[in-house]
């Protein structure tokens, strides 16, 4: 099965808003967040057995987080990128722990760095950051320079340091 046929097949799954082929052997599926477990379970039973990773992108201007699931099928030799958007203020998404157990680690990581809650994941405790009390650091509105000034007490020494070049 090539990526065109696969994209057409996935288009009919409930909750899918678009499904397109791209590059040589990839498909890109956009779906609603609540439909993720159903869609991913459909993809898994259709050969996409390998979960490469889960990640989040902060689209701050649109007020949304995008969750991206990268899957690979050893049967069809195809890659699937599944994207779902969640609201930035009420960041909730269903957990896919029952499909891939290692998703536990990815979801815990995303919760820590973006503040997205995964309903159904029992362990979302802090993992990488020790004693972190600030806003989640991979959000676009987290200013690293302002944070280090505040946390480590950087003093303005009056010296003109190299500024970022305007390109």
């Amino acid at each position, binding site marked *: 099965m090539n990526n065109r046929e696969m994209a057409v097949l996935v288009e009919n799954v409930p909750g899918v808003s678009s499904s397109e082929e791209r590059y040589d052997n990839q498909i890109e599926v956009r779906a609603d967040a609540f439909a993720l477990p159903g869609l991913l379970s459909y993809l898994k039973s259709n050969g996409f057995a390998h979960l490469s990773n889960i*990640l989040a992108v902060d689209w701050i201007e649109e007020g949304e987080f995008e969750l991206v699931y990268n899957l690979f099928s050893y049967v069809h030799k195809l890659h699937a990128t599944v994207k779902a958007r969640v609201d930035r203020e009420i960041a909730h998404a269903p957990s896919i722990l029952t499909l891939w157990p290692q998703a536990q680690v990815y979801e815990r990581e995303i919760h820590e760095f973006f503040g997205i809650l995964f309903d159904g994941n029992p362990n979302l405790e802090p993992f990488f*950051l020790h004693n972190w009390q600030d806003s989640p650091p991979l959000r676009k509105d987290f200013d690293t320079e302002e944070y280090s000034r505040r946390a480590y007490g950087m003093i303005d020494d009056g010296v003109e340091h190299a500024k970022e070049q305007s390109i």
Partner: protein
Amino acid sequence: MTTTLDFAELTELTRTDKYVQYELFFGPNFPGMHGNFGYILDVAGSTITGVRANPGLLHRGFEKLMEQKLWLQNLSLIPRICVVDPDPNEVAYCTAIERIMGLEIPERAKYIRTITLEMSRLASYLMGMGALGAMMGLYTAMYRMISDRDTLLDLFEWLTGARIYHIYNMPGGVRRDIPEGWTERLLQTLDALESNIPEWDRLVFENPIVIKRLTGIGPLSADEAVGMGIVGPNLRATGFKADVRIDDPYAAYPYLEIERPDAGGGGDALARAVQIRLEYEATIRLIRQAVRQLPGGDYRLKLGNPLRMIVPKGDAYARVESSKGEFGYYVVSDGGVKPYRVSVRGPSLPAGLYLCNKHLPGMLIDDVAIWMASLAVCPPDFDK
């Protein structure tokens, strides 16, 4: 009052797990640990009863840093995600950018990338096999293999100017062409490496102590491994045929014939060690094949001023088969001079942070380092 020593009880104490439960910090400062990562083990006697991964001490915020640097500046940052095998990072990042830009790089560049990737794999396997020996007190293996690895680093230095972090690939190809006389020297080095293999067999892979220690450690079945996201030699050692170079080809791999050595599919630490050993031999032959087919022509597309590089809006995922399996880069561009988001998929995350909860309980403390070395758990690629 005189105390009489009850020898029967004492032997019983040292033999079985009658010590009270205690907590053992395995790492961050432990010679068997690569990088400042650790496991907090609950131990009774010398048997592990519970485990908690303790990442974070190595976390440098790479993904946040990458959003603040120009497309090209990131190239000096990303090899640092994997110290032993840095080239897959560069190639995966560049391939993702080339996919977004819709570029097809010159044939020669593809072959040069392939050769450096495979050299990096050789260097990493030597380190891996040596570390496996060192975890069992067989330091001779470590010293001898590291000295073999050094001959490869010399070649890297000649080609790229650096021994460890080569920063050699860039979007559109590679930074400079292969110098005159380099390929001849590479072939000589490969002959020398190949002639040492019987010695490694005698020292490590036919060593009865090694075989006894490795048998049965961390067994994995193929279904389990696929369902958990285990990749690379660890997955192939379970008998499952999967290789990114064949399944999702990049660089010059579509033009090459890639061997698929089979270690018998045992799925335990011994099978994984043998798998690496067989792939080491196959990699040497693959480099020879690539050198034989090396075409002429350009080694890089001219993309204008690299510091003013702009990548069109879009996103792409690119995966590369590193010595530990699939290294993946998901790159998002909003059309600016910097990446909007870069996410790295480290190959050892499923083993290092998830599988440990299943494998380590019930194991002896002595076997943890062997388990880590056999699965090639490299903390910098998930604690990044």
